[in-house]
């Protein structure tokens, strides 16, 4: 009995093997496969339905409103950040303010309405709400600070 107990204790305190951990992590990814494929599916739809032209048409030439629109459009749109640079560059040549363009570039990466269901599932509603509200507010603050600083410097 004593020997058996010792063996069981040793097994329970033994470090799990590399392959066991690998299997556990593969299963963890497999478990969220429906979430990931759902998000990727939505990204594909939004990339087709929301074109850069549509985004450019939203701006009103009012710095404050445009900063808000820039933040929201970046959150709605998604894809490689390079696309946000291209759209941002185009918007600047069309006379859209740097406030709006900075906000768009920032929210493109940090905010995403499409990712919300997955974020809630993985991190919980409270965390997702706090993180996204903070990211939204800070996108606007950073966009304004960047533009104001550049005005002073240049």
């Amino acid at each position: 009995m004593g020997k058996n107990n010792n063996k069981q204790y040793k097994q329970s305190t033994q470090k799990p093997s590399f392959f066991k951990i690998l299997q556990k992590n593969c299963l963890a990814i497999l478990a969220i496969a429906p979430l990931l494929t759902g998000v990727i599916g939505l990204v594909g739809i939004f990339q087709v339905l929301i074109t850069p032209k549509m985004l450019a048409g939203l701006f009103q030439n009012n710095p404050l409103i445009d900063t808000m629109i820039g933040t929201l459009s970046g959150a709605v749109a998604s894809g490689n950040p390079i696309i946000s640079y291209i759209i941002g560059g185009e918007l600047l040549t069309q006379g859209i303010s740097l406030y709006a363009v900075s906000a768009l570039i920032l929210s493109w990466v940090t905010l995403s309405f499409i990712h919300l269901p997955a974020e809630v599932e993985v991190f919980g509603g409270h965390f997702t709400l706090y993180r996204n509200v903070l990211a939204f507010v800070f996108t606007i603050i950073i966009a304004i600070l960047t533009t104001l600083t550049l005005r002073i410097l240049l």
Partner: protein
Amino acid sequence: MKNQDKRFTFRGKYFFLAVLIFYGVIFFFRSQAAQLALMKSSSILIKILPILIFVILFTTLLNYFLKPKQIAGHLDRESGIKAWIWALAAGVISHGPMYAWYPLLEDLRSHGMRDGLIVVFFASRTIKIPLLPIMIDYFGWAFTLVLSFYLLIGALVQGLVLEIFQQRSMDT
């Protein structure tokens, strides 16, 4: 350890079903757009597969060489300024879409990683080192430098603000 004991279940089944229905509706009204969206989604999936493999291997190595308690010791509430700098650097270095990093962060969180550090990681991801030359080309040196500076400061402040919010809601 808790995760190990959990029974395997697929997460986000209803969300996936909703997306499938959405595709069905678009296919019905604009079949070409639906096909294009499917193609775009497939190419995104192919692009993020190497990142997912990296995340699996990295998490495995992390769990194999470091005990959960060790990881928690570096990222928990008692961790100092080093943890904040690590989170900031990890966010800047991390590649690919945000959701590819969810499994790793979820695992670290279950080992005790504080939420403020996750916020810092996500917020600092706007700086993409390989894309900096393109940003400089489009917007210039000054814009890139000033934006990056405010982004790093902003990421740290967001993490700190979240922790203050969480502390307050715990107190009340």
